[in-house]
């Protein structure tokens, strides 16, 4: 089962690194924001997967909750700031 989680971790890291292409090269600023949103959502899965590999899920799931809240709030704030 640990090999499965390691493979899942590599796949999610490939997803995040390919999103950095859209963040760097995106034609408008909204494309960059969209790519950052996808990175933030995938990072929650990466954190819990690292928790399963280390067998300390009870610590990493709290970090995942805080990351989800902060990512959502920063997305909303940046969208309100850019719409003015």
């Amino acid at each position, binding site marked *: *089962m640990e090999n*499965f989680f390691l493979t*899942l971790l590599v*796949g*999610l890291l490939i*997803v995040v690194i*390919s*999103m950095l*292409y*859209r963040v760097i090269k995106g*034609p*408008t600023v*909204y*494309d960059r*924001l*969209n*790519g950052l*949103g*996808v990175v933030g*959502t*995938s990072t*929650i*899965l990466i954190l*819990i997967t690292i928790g*399963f590999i280390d067998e300390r*899920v*009870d610590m990493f*799931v*709290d970090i*995942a*909750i805080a990351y*989800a*809240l902060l990512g*959502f709030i920063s*997305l*909303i704030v940046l*969208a*309100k700031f*850019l*719409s003015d």
Partner: protein
Amino acid sequence: MVNYIAIIFILFGFFFVSVAAIGVLRLPDFYTRMHASGKSETLGVMLTLIGFVIYNGFNLVSLKMMLVSAFILLGNPIGTHAISRAAFYSGLEPWRKKDN
């Protein structure tokens, strides 16, 4: 047996997450990219978290994972809607097919 069910859920979730990533990379316009990341990403993350909950069993950590899942279900479409609303009000034109 429980591990196999969890693996099936996690693989379906990772399939939807990678489909969202391919859509954000390949689609031609900002609004179509939002369409890819808004729905497919939410479904993929929720399926993967349900797989994690099935693998972990029933305790407080699983309850926190279900809390993250419910928060993603509420928060991800709202964030997508806010960004695309900001883009539309700032005058970004949707993509159209070229006339011949």
